[in-house]
């Protein structure tokens, strides 16, 4: 991960964590505040509802009282104060009056509770209604279960005695019992604030009955969701509140407050369920959450942009430095860093520029030193090489001079012998000069398709005779060739490389040993190893091995390995050596396949010549 | 036709079937019954049904002690029911069934005298022990003769029942002479009856031929003539008697005479309806037309006659030869003037309903001293609707036809005014 990315991540994380923390804190605080407000609102609404419920009761009482005081009631009372009972004129009376007074239930009953006229069950005239509290008339409205032709219903009732006026037989009173059904009309008729609804549960049967739950729309959906709550309230017999999740959508949630309603016998006749919608709260919460998320997101984006910009500002000089360092590593010693800033980075850049400057100077110095050293070595070598044949030449010439002076008769003979020696020595000198010029005249490789294994075999065949020549210790030779495949290279030059290495190895084993040649194939390269079991080389020797004119042997110009390296390098390959003293040496030549350098046309050789 | 006709059962009562002799004899027997003062069938013979029921009861119970209860659920009166009770006990005892107190009886027999539209139905529910009660019953035809007669209250208007029959009477007229003769006009004939020993005896029926169907609410008028016996006016048909005993009828829209003979006014009758078109001939003074009317009554004045018309729109029109004055009255559509000789001399009889929703009509008498009718005396109530009211030719009396729907009979009355009130 780059320095810039690291910086970016650190900046972004910091901003994100800060925003998230703020959002969570705001959300928690908002929820607490709302829940408190919601509780207070629900409590207020429940109080309002109970007030409304009481008002309904009073309204019913007033209507029943009005009916009891009406002419129709007096007429009924008068008619039934006599012994003969005729229900016929009053069959529809209760229904008519109930409709006028907007009551669901209305009955006229006599002192024994016998129904004279019933609005809710007209057919029940003459039958007793045992559930009426005629003994002691309740003054306020009360809840009562009412039998209906098609089942039972709960109603809010009021009962009044009809004041029959003077002359009425005081014993047989007539009563008016009127009420409103606790049904969806009743529920929907309650004046409730927005977001609030009332439901009613009729407690007729033990266990929860979904049909007994009534809401303004009729039957609520999924009444089973509150079954447990209803049963709990019925068991505890006191007001209770719960949160109901109607659906997976939290906006549909409802805070439900249950109020047990008791009839005259103090039994719980039903439950009034006041539901307060959580939608407002949930929506507010969602708004806060989305605002927080939006602010956080925007902050995060801004943070990323800013951090990116800041990181870029910080890291650009560093990157320039790193790039310059890489350039230097690649050998571009004259690389410089241009930093337009101040502070530590600017100092660092200056130091870097100074460093490269120093390095450049030191290298140039070193090159100069090396060059001088090389010239010195060359001069020394040349002098040494030339001095060796010159001395016999000097001796021979002096011998000739002396022979002329001292023994002219033998001069001819001596002359003959001396000229032969002279010629031999001159030839030797020529050979020395030729080898030096050869090194300076190394040609550019001409690439041809070849099999490295073929070259190895050729070289081994060439030296085979020398391996077991008379007067020589025997050298065993083993060849291990892998399937190297085709490659491109200059066969002559590579042949020289291999033969140089093989001759070197043979030279390293004057006492005999084993020579091993191995080829390896890699995907893009081919390698050849030449191993010997000679005396080996010290690490210092290894370091200097490829330096021209260096030799560890008693003979040779010291140019062999330098030529090897030169050719391999021209092929784009590398040569390496590993050696341990007394355990032999292994040269490894790695050559790229260079198939792209194959020229389909000419195979010319540029026989350039370089004077060294 | 399939099968062989073994027995022919013709429908019982059919006035259009060619069975005139039977119908005549029926009419005759009815006449006998009515004229003899409704007394004939007061004691019908209950013996046979009593016997039949007693036999059926006995077949269930066998001889023994029974307790018998009788309930009358029919229109039979109490006397008749008691009579039947006695008769039954007699029949039962002759079959070996003794009537005892309920606690001693082996069987309880509850007898009900009931009836349906056609028959008396006498049932006996016989309860023996704890068995389901056995039911036996007999039925016997109902007779209208058992219906009780009606009272004739004292009246201001003197009315005399002339004739009664099931078919509709259109008009009737009494021919004075010795013997007295009665002419009765109905839809099919003019029937002539002769007074013999206090009863009207059928003498002759003069059939009326007509090709078109009669209109609903058929009307007709008999006019006695001096040169021949009678003229009969029916909607679209005019009949005149010839040679004493035959009647010649032809389709005619001749105007019908209105009022009494001395005030000659004729009016055209709508042939397919029940009213006069309003066209008058020769006219009241110069007035030759009035609104369509049902009936007319004339009141002779010194120098002119005042004509009253009950028009079809429910109004009363008074025509004096010059003016046509209208008054909305509560008069019925039937009016007739009668010369009584008392009061102003002439009075107008007008029909009225005696009360709302009543089926019965009444007749009221009006004096019209100038143009303002006023009621004199009490209305005379009739048991039924008055379907016709025509002045007699001499103007001294009128004939009213009453339809007594409870008996299904038409009755013709002669109306005279007794002015000594």
């Amino acid at each position, binding site marked *: 991960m780059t320095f810039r990315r690291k910086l970016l991540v650190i900046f972004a994380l910091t901003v994100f964590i800060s925003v998230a923390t703020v959002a969570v804190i705001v959300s928690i605080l908002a929820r607490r505040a709302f829940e408190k407000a919601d509780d207070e609102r629900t409590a207020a609404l429940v109080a309002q509802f109970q007030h409304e419920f009481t008002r309904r009761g009073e309204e019913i009482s007033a209507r029943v009282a009005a009916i009891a005081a009406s002419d129709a009631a007096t007429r009924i009372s008068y008619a039934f104060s006599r012994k003969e009972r*005729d*229900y016929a004129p009053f*069959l529809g009376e209760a229904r008519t009056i109930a409709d006028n007074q907007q009551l669901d239930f209305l009955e006229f009953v006599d002192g024994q509770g016998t129904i004279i006229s019933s609005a809710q069950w007209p*057919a*029940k*005239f003459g*039958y007793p209604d045992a559930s009426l509290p005629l003994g002691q008339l309740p003054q306020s409205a009360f809840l009562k279960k009412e039998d209906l*032709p098609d089942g039972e219903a709960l109603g809010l009732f009021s009962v009044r005695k009809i004041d029959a006026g003077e002359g009425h037989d005081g014993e047989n009173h007539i009563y008016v019992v009127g009420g409103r059904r606790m049904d969806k009309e009743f529920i929907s008729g309650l004046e409730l604030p927005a977001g609030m609804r009332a439901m009613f549960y009729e407690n007729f049967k033990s266990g929860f009955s979904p049909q007994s739950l009534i809401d303004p729309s009729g039957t609520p959906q999924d009444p089973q969701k509150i079954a447990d709550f209803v049963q709990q309230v019925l068991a505890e017999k006191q007001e209770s509140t719960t949160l109901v999740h109607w659906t997976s959508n939290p906006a549909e949630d409802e805070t439900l407050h249950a109020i047990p309603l008791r009839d005259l016998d103090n039994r719980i006749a039903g439950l009034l369920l006041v539901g307060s919608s959580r939608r407002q709260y949930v929506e507010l919460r969602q708004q806060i959450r989305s605002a927080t998320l939006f602010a956080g997101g925007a902050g995060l984006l801004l943070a990323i942009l800013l951090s990116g910009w800041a990181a870029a500002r910080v890291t650009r000089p560093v990157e320039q430095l790193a790039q310059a360092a890489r350039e230097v590593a690649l050998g571009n010693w004259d690389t410089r860093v241009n930093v337009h800033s101040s502070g530590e980075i600017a100092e660092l850049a200056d130091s870097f520029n100074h460093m490269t400057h120093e390095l450049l100077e030191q290298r140039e110095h070193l090159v100069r030193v090396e060059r001088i050293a090389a010239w010195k070595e060359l001069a020394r070598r040349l002098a040494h090489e030339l001095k060796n044949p010159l001395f016999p030449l000097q001796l021979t010439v002096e011998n000739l001079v002396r022979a002329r002076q001292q023994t002219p008769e033998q001069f001819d003979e001596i002359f003959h012998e001396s000229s032969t020696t002279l010629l031999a020595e001159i030839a030797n000198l020529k050979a020395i000069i030729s080898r030096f010029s050869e090194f300076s005249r190394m040609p550019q490789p001409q690439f041809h398709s070849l099999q490295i294994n073929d070259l190895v075999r050729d070289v081994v065949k060439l030296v085979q005779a020398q391996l077991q020549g008379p007067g020589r210790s025997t050298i065993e030779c083993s060849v291990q060739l892998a399937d190297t495949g085709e490659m491109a290279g200059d066969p002559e030059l590579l042949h020289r490389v291999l033969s140089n290495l093989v001759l070197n190895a043979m030279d390293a084993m004057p006492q005999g040993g084993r020579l091993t040649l191995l080829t390896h194939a890699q995907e893009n390269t081919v390698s050849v190893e030449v191993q010997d079991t000679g005396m080996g080389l010290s690490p210092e020797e290894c370091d200097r091995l490829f330096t021209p004119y260096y030799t560890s042997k008693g003979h040779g110009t010291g140019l062999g390995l330098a030529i090897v390296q030169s050719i391999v390098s021209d092929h784009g390959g590398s040569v390496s050596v590993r050696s341990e003293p007394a355990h032999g040496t292994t040269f490894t030549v790695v050559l790229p396949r260079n198939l792209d350098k194959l020229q389909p046309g000419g195979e010319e050789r540029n026989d350039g010549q370089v004077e060294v | *036709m*399939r*099968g062989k*006709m*073994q027995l*022919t*059962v*013709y*429908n*019982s*009562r*059919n006035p259009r*079937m060619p069975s005139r002799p039977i119908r005549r004899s029926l009419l005759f027997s009815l006449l006998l019954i009515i004229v003899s003062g409704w007394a004939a069938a007061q004691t019908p013979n209950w013996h046979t049904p009593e016997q039949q029921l007693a036999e059926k009861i006995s077949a269930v119970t066998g001889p023994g002690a029974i307790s018998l209860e009788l309930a009358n*659920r029919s229109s039979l009166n109490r006397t008749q029911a008691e009579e039947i009770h006695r008769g039954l006990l007699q029949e039962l005892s002759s079959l070996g069934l003794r009537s005892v107190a309920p606690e001693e009886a082996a069987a309880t027999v509850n007898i009900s005298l*009931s*009836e*349906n*539209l*056609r*028959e008396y139905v006498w*049932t006996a*529910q016989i309860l023996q022990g704890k068995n389901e009660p056995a*039911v036996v*019953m007999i*039925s016997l035809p109902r007779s209208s003769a058992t219906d009780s007669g009606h009272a004739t209250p004292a009246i201001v208007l003197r009315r005399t029942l002339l004739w009664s029959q099931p078919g509709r009477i259109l008009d009737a007229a009494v021919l004075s002479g010795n013997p007295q003769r009665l002419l009765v006009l109905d839809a099919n004939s003019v029937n002539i009856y002769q007074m013999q020993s206090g009863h009207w005896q059928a003498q002759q029926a003069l059939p009326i031929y007509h090709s078109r*169907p*009669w209109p*609903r609410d*058929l009307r007709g008028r008999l006019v006695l003539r001096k040169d021949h016996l009678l003229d009969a006016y029916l909607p679209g048909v005019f009949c005149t008697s010839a040679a004493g005993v035959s009647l010649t009828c032809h389709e005619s829209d001749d105007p019908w005479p209105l009022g009494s003979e001395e005030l000659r006014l004729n009016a055209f009758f709508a042939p397919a309806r*029940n*009213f006069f078109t309003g066209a008058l001939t020769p006219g009241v003074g110069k007035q030759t037309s009035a609104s369509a009317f049902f*009936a007319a009554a004339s009141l002779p004045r010194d120098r002119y006659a005042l004509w009253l018309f*009950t028009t079809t*729109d429910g109004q009363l029109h008074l025509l004096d030869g010059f*003016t046509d*004055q*209208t*008054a*909305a*009255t*509560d008069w*019925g*559509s039937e009016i007739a003037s009668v010369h009584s000789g008392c009061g102003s001399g002439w009075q107008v009889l007008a*029909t*009225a*309903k005696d009360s*709302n929703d009543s089926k019965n009509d*009444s007749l009221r008498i009006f004096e019209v001293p100038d*143009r*303002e*009718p006023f009621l004199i005396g009490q209305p005379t109530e009739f048991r039924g*609707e008055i379907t016709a009211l025509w002045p007699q030719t001499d103007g001294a009396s009128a004939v009213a036809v009453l339809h007594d729907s409870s008996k299904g009979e038409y009755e013709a009355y002669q109306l005279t005014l007794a002015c000594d009130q």
Partner: protein
Amino acid sequence: MKRTSLLWLAINSLALASLAVASLTITTVARAATRPHYGGVLRLAIAGPVSSLDPADASNVSGQTAIQHIAPLLFNTLTTLDDRGEAQPSLALAWKSDFSSQHWEFQLRPGIAFSDGTPLTANAVAASLRVANPRWNISPAGDSVIIESDSAARELPAELALSRNSVVLREGGKLIGTGPFTLAQWEPGKNLALSAREDYWARRPFVDSVEIAIGRSPRDQMLSLELGRLDGVELAAEQASGTVAGGRVVNSAPDELLTIVFSRDAHSPEDRRLRQALGLAIDRSLLNTVVLHSSGEPAGGLLPNWMTGYEFLFSTSPDSQRARQIHEGINQSSAWNLGYDQTDPSARVIAERIALNAQDAGINIKPNPAASPDAQLVRIRLVSRDAHVALNHLAISLQLPAPDPHRASSQSTSSQSLSTADLYAAENALLQTERAIPLLHLRTAVALARNVHGWSEAQDGRWDLPNVWLSAEKPSTEKP
């Protein structure tokens, strides 16, 4: 002279004006016994749905009562029943049968034409009767029609008086009759307008036309009557005892049966006993007096007493103790659903009252108009004044087995007309099937405006519109 005559005229006018005022005040008290008026439009309303005017259309079950009122206006039957329920000639002048009462010959009245002018022929009569009576073999023979049936048909002349046996000329979907009126306008289920036939063979009706509004609510009808938009309306049974502002109510004898009909035969003796117990549990008298405002009579039998003379033999008094005894030990497997007509306002109360009475006797019945009923509360009009014909058709309507008086009684031979005892035996046998529990016989009633006269007050509530006439007085001249 001229001056005096003018003065005289003025005085007369004044006098007449005062007479008019005086008589107007009298009008409200006394009523004129006027001769029937010709003309006018009689506007009636009937409750029953009428979708077809074809009296032989058996599919028109709910409109049976209405069609019985309407059919005689357009069509005639071969016979009519008189007030005693006996067949009288109508289109047939005379008839005779063979000994077995299987072969009948009806001689047609000559000179009668359908309203389109087509003469009435034996062929036309036979074709018409075949539609309603596919089981009879009907053939024309000269000016007579021969009717042959498989079994003795002693009530055939009375049967032919039923409106379903009206003589109808069916031509390309049109129904043509010989009746007192012709069809002027017909909107099925809504309005019917009829015009009087001038050439009606049995005398032209008094009114010029009759307009009948169909299927209006009772409340609408009464309102229209009171506003003078209608001259007569058919009343529901519970309205029959009421009074009508500006009019009167004409009641029939009880001619409609209110009964419980079970949808199946009793499948076991226990089932029979339960049904008997239910019959005993119901307090018919209170149903009549309270729920139906005494508009009927408690019914123990299928036919009313005025028709049979023996109906009192079938008990109607409630006895819930006996009811309990009868079904003691029987476990009613499930509550009976009692169906009723939801459009009938009193049917629900009656059904609920029955359920309460049944509950007292320990029988479980649920009034339920929606569910498929075990028993149904139905009102059926008696189609004929002839008790035998009425019973036969009642059995058909209630889907009871056909009464067989020949088997029920051995007293009468096939040539004799059926006796009341035969009728009793047949009716008793029907009741013994426990398929039906008769409750009440109800009156039918019409409310009439004051200007309607001549309305038949026959016991069976039939309408005799040709004899109805309208007087000039009208509470309102407003057109409907």
